[in-house]
């Protein structure tokens, strides 16, 4: 799938993952909770297998809205290890991004805990549609991420004039953690939610 901006077309694939649906398909149809490490591992590997079939930059929309119980072992597998694998290019190589959706209040503790443990960021759309950068980010990273999130897209030409050295470090870290997307051709910065909006059929 690809989305269009008024100026040009972004070459990006997207796919949506309903975690509950994936859980019933890959683990057991009787399970409705994201609990225990083997279950989390199976769900993560199913997502990675889908990512492995795609070549270009890809946005994965991982939806937790139908999951009620998420324990720490599963958060470790489905959030932390998935993000870590994407960042490190192991086991799937490629430019992948994850937007977690449908996060509920009682999912936050396990998710925050595992992000903290691995020093990872996650872009999360909570129920009620508040979007946040979760995880241990520096103030400059949070500020820059929030700026891009507010605007949706910042053209490369606007960036050059407004980033000080601290912002440039922050940008580097946000791109490394796949919390923002940079158009490889034009250099424009995109919030993941903006990509999701553009790619939504």
């Amino acid at each position, binding site marked *: 799938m690809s989305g269009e901006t008024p100026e040009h077309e972004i070459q990006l694939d997207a796919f949506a993952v309903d975690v509950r649906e994936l859980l019933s398909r890959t683990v*057991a149809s*009787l*399970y*409705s*909770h994201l*609990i*225990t*490490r*083997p*279950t989390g591992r199976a769900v993560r590997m199913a997502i990675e297998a889908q990512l492995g079939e795609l070549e270009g930059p890809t946005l994965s929309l991982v939806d937790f809205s139908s999951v*009620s*119980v*998420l*324990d*720490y*072992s599963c958060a*470790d*597998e489905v959030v*932390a*290890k998935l993000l870590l694998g994407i960042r490190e290019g192991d086991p799937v190589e490629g430019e992948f991004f994850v937007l977690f959706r449908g996060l509920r*209040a*009682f999912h936050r*503790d*396990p998710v925050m*805990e*595992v992000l903290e*443990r*691995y020093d990872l960021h996650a872009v999360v759309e909570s129920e009620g549609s508040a979007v946040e950068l979760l995880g241990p980010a520096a103030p400059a990273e949070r500020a820059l991420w929030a700026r891009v999130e507010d605007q949706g897209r910042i053209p490369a030409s606007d960036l050059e004039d407004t980033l000080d050295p601290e912002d440039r470090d922050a940008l580097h870290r946000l791109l490394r953690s796949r919390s923002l997307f940079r158009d490889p051709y034009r250099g424009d910065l995109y919030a993941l939610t903006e990509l999701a909006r553009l790619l939504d059929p």
Partner: protein
Amino acid sequence: MRVLDLPQSLDYRSVGEVMERAVECRGEKVLLDGRRLRFVDPVGMLGLLGNGRYLGEGSGAPPRLALDPDSDVHRYLARMNFFEAAEGVLAVEGVARPRRGGASDVLLEITPIAENRDVHALVEHIQDRAGTILSRTLGYPPSAVIQFAVILSEVCQNILEHAGAPGWVAAQTYQWSRRLGRQVLVLAVGDLGRGFRGSLEGEHAGRFGSRWGDATALEAAFIHGLTRFPDQGRGQGIQQIRKQVRRWGGVISVRSGRARIADSADWEALPPMEDGLAPFPGAWITILLPAAEGAGE
């Protein structure tokens, strides 16, 4: 035949004494005499099962258990599925097994945990009942049922990932009129597996040198979140359980081998660490969660 008298109240406070005496009787035929038993909580029930299996493995035959068939304790044990769990573990003497009733006020009957799917089944099963008890009886917010399910999941995974042997879990609430003036939820999890020391030994014993033992292993897992897995994401379960228990003003203790470690509350001050206990195998976790102040008034 050695007779091991059970106390009148077999609960998280007294079960340790029974374990101590079971270690002394290991290898002999034993009668667990529970005819005076008048109160038993989930920790006591799992302790009885653990003693039964431990003594049975030592002597080659399940020890006998005598109970007063007319006592409330007997009926209560039946409601908690104790007699089903005791099959092959204890030879319960001379009483017909009472039939269980329909609807139950039990929070969680004794449930064996041997596989991943047992944890899933447990969490599915307990949602409705736990929701009612946690909110109405303990006065916890509605979201507590999810946090409680997470605790259950993590604590049962401790059996699967570290014990290398099956275990049991059970929970119930009680009115602690004298001690606290509030309801308390008692959650017990136990197994006869390799224990924390056995689980961590291969990976961590070397760095502790001569200090290595049950107490240091418990400290390493309970305080520092060490596990035998090199994976950075492991070892969070027990840390998060401790955090949540603390938020609810509760108590958690873990006995493994010769040691017991605990996080106390002002209403129940357990020693932070006990060492030199009798070497009872496995890991025995007790969690006590008090009702919120003002709940049920």
